[in-house]
């Protein structure tokens, strides 16, 4: 009886694992199968043409714009915020409030960020549907990610490093940027790479703040579409699954490279001898 029960549960575990792995393989396989024949240099580096057959360079450029702008703002703020929480703050109500706010920001769905961005940045601050409005919205989305990963990285820096540096007569600030931050750098970097992944994969918030113009953006105040939004729109408007899958391949390859480099960097972190 007990044996039969064990066999039942064991096969259930195997079955679930097979379902999960098969489904995920089918999805990736499907996207590559449908889209791979469209992938060539002209597709990636060619300008978009509304009549079809064009490339996706404008969407790649837009995606890069959003990554660069939102990280330029979110990275310094996020790192300094984490430094405050980890190195300066005394436990108390203020810290609890800041931690609570950071955690809550993580739980808000991106469509709500989109709603907020569409009114605050687009309308109130009069930026219009633009790359800059989308990037500022994305800044708020990735801020908690950067704060949390930086905090984790700072935690791994041994206390003896700080004590050693302070004992040499340095100020807290000197210890911070000469000793603590360099030691925590690999962890911080992999956090930033994870944020890039989040920005690349984001769609709803960008859809509501950057608009859908399918052309090379003139500057950061132009409306434009990112890769994910493009993939969505060609599916929804034209039902062009193959084109959507081709864009999907580009996205998956980007995410793969980002993940590999994050793993590589955090492995380096583990090898560093503390």
């Amino acid at each position, binding site marked *: 009886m007990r044996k039969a029960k064990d066999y039942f549960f064991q096969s259930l575990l195997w079955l679930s694992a097979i379902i999960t792995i098969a489904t995920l393989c089918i999805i*990736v396989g*499907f996207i590559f199968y449908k889209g791979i024949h469209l992938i060539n240099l002209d597709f990636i580096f060619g300008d978009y043409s509304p009549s079809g057959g064009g490339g996706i360079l404008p969407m790649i450029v837009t995606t890069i714009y959003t990554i660069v702008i939102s990280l330029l703002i979110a990275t310094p703020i996020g790192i300094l915020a984490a430094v405050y929480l980890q190195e300066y703050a005394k436990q108390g109500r203020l810290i609890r409030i800041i931690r609570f706010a950071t955690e809550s920001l993580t739980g808000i769905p991106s469509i709500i960020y989109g709603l907020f961005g*569409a009114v605050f940045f687009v309308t109130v601050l009069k930026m219009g549907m633009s790359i800059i409005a989308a990037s500022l919205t994305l800044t708020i989305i990735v801020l908690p990610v950067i704060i949390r990963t930086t905090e984790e990285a700072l935690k791994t820096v041994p206390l003896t490093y700080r004590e050693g540096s302070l004992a040499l007569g340095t100020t807290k600030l000197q210890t911070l940027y000469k000793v603590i931050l360099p030691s925590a750098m690999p962890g911080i970097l992999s956090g930033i790479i994870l944020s890039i992944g989040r920005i690349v994969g984001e769609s709803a918030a960008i859809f509501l703040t950057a608009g859908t113009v399918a052309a090379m953006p003139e500057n950061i105040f132009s409306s434009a579409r990112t890769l994910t939004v493009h993939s969505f729109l060609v599916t929804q408007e034209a039902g062009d699954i193959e084109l959507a899958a081709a864009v999907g391949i580009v996205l998956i390859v980007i995410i793969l490279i980002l993940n590999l480099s994050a793993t590589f960097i955090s492995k380096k972190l583990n090898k560093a001898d503390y």
Partner: protein
Amino acid sequence: MPNHSNEELVSQIESSNKRKYFLEKLSEKVFLFCSLLSVISLLLIIGFVFYKGTHPFFAEGYSFIEFIFGLDWVPSEDKFGILPMIVASIFATIGALIIGVPIGLFTAIFLAEIAPKSIARIISPAVQLLAGIPSVLYGVFGLAIIVPFLQNHLGLAKGQSLIAVILVLAIMMLPTIVTVAETSIRAVPKTYREGSLALGASPIGTIFKVVVPAAKSGIMAAIVLGLGRAIGETMAVILVAGNSLVLPTSLTDSIRPLTTNIALEMGYAFGTHQEMLFATGIVLFSFILILNLVLAKIGSKGGK
């Protein structure tokens, strides 16, 4: 005069120290300000969404009850009822949980406890990678494979339906649930397993009665994360939901959840219509809060 130069030196050191102390003080203030920015952002977001979303009810005389329980959403006729969307969101989320959580959890247990190390070492990172794939792609897959499949095999006029949304959301939350749950199961100390096995429990019995309960808080976190991804998902859902404004009564009905209503109409909405979309956002917000609270309750009860 040696005395004089000595004094000069002292005053020089003092002024340099003063600058240092000033810099220390200033930098701490700057750091504090940076960490307060997340509080400010949160307050701004909540403030804006709630101000905009409650305006029609306080200032324009719309009834909140009619908004929540109204069956018709016709902005051009000034009718704003979101009951069908609330029901659609609830059904889609619960359906995705029913399918996604057990499969995801069992896969996590499999990878952490049963799978040969060489297999787990390949599959775990692959699943982790899939958690990062843009959700739109799951929608594209759903529209290209799941929707036609339902259309052909269930004889639906339109494959875009509640069941299609449930399947896409369930698949989408799998990698998240597997990755987080697997980490927490692996973190259970080996001694727990050894103790249970030494008492004569079978390996499978040990997994379900000792290891899984010990990893409970991490497993709950996995479910909450997967859930958050499912409720908040918008673009993938638009592709497979069909977006009809009817109260869903069966799995094959075309639905329009709360998120897609916002995304579909925000582009051209203005005035009261736009404010009603913010009100939809508030409902979505409260929805997420309630579900998280319920799950936290379940989690803490299981612990006793």
